[in-house]
């Protein structure tokens, strides 16, 4: 029996294809700004969103999407207005999110297997309506990053120069934070809330080790993200593993491999 005979696997792979591209692409610009951990903070806010969905009896993906975007934009606004240093803004949202999630989950009596599927990812839980949401928002996200690539690179290279020369830095930073929130919410079904940040960061830092230009870093990050998702989903299917863990361990394996290639290359030159 082929892996694609099962409907849930076709849904998981289709969702994974979008998530595998979007997460490293958004992650690339976050890593450049020294905000590698923002995905983790947003993930914890998404947990509160999922819990709220259970409490109200509505789609947890929709409530997590709203919570993630609001959390991400809050972190960016606090950081940019110097009301809090970057790590303090992250910590504030991170802990508030997880605390709110725990309280709401206990109030909703939703501490069950479904919740664990959101936390660690599952190949069984992606629905057709999830897929539609992921494809539509994923295409919008990919299109925005492609269209705004040059100003985003200008900010990554020198934020102050971009601001002085009229690039709308504040608006683009909020947009990028919002996209990070969307990415977390879209990815949580298969990667899991607690592991999604890794898919935004690990392919990027693996690509950083071996690429020779920004464009090749981005291309390789996306390729590693896709291969990590597809490999992880396949392992999860055949070995009955948590999908998120399998995906992230594959991505971590690529980082080790890329580091080895970089070391060999450096020894040879």
């Amino acid at each position, binding site marked *: 029996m082929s892996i694609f005979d099962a409907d849930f696997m076709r849904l998981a792979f289709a969702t994974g294809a979008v998530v595998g591209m979007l997460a490293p692409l958004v992650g690339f610009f976050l890593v450049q700004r020294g905000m590698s951990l923002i995905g983790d903070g947003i993930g914890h806010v998404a947990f509160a969103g999922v819990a709220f969905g259970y409490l109200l009896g509505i789609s947890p993906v929709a409530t997590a999407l709203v919570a993630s975007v609001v959390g991400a934009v809050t972190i960016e606004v606090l950081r940019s207005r110097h009301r809090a240093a970057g790590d303090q803004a992250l910590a504030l949202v991170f802990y508030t999110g997880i605390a709110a999630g725990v309280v709401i989950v206990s109030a909703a009596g939703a501490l069950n297997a479904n919740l664990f599927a959101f936390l660690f990812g599952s190949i069984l839980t992606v629905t057709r309506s999830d897929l539609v949401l992921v494809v539509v928002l994923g295409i919008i996200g990919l299109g925005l990053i492609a269209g705004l690539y040059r100003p985003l690179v200008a900010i990554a290279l020198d934020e102050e120069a971009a601001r002085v020369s009229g690039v709308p830095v504040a608006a683009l930073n909020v947009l990028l934070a919002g996209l990070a929130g969307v990415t977390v919410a879209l990815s949580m079904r298969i990667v899991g809330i607690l592991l999604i940040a890794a898919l935004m960061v690990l392919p990027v830092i693996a690509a950083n080790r071996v690429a*020779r230009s920004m464009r090749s870093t981005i291309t390789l990050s996306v390729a590693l993200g896709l291969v990590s998702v597809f490999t992880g989903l396949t392992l999860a299917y055949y070995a009955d593993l948590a999908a998120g863990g399998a995906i992230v361990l594959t991505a971590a394996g690529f980082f080790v491999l890329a580091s080895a290639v970089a070391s060999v290359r450096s020894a040879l030159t």
Partner: protein
Amino acid sequence: MLVAVELKDVAFAYPRAAPSLQGVNVVIEPGEFLAIAGPNGGGKTTLLRVALGILHPQVGFARLFGEPAVSFDQRERIGYLAQRAQLGTNAPVTVREVVTAGRAPRLGLFRPQRRHDRRVVERAMERVGLSDQADAELSTLSGGQQQRAFMAKALAGEPDLLVLDEPTAGVDADAQESFAALLAELHHDLGVTILFVSHEFGAVEQFVERLVLVRGGITFDGKPKSLPPHWHDPSHVHL
């Protein structure tokens, strides 16, 4: 032609701090090559930020090309180069990618690069002598060459006003001299207004037409030749 930069009776203080600037009056004409120097903490960076409209003065006003600096809406006319230590990314990046990023303000949002934009980028790399290293990774270049790459990035925006904030900090003496010679050449060839802010202005002293020393206010404004000999080290400027 409109004055490039104008500061009129400017005073500025950060919250809960003594005034950084008081009674500052500076007019910079288009095409001038001017250095602003002074000791650390003397207010030169504050002056620069007020001039660029990043900070709002509590007293007086700042104008860029005749418009209030805070609401100046032709910012693509300004090229900016920061200290080398503040530049670069966590990712590998080529010289061409760095310089192309400088075209972003002229492109605006969503507009792709066209043939003219690519030509401007090529010309900017030629001007700083990095055409041969266009596809080299930035981190493989020397500190001075990296600074030239970011200079080309500023030039790729075809600026009318080039602002250099301590551009040679952390760069060795030879690279500083070579960078100063490059600035003189650019000023001569392009006629661009250059505002060079530095703690150390020795390397550009022979090229700039005008020197402004800042320590809470303007303590000297004139030709570098007319600066008293014992004032040549700006860290020894006294009010």
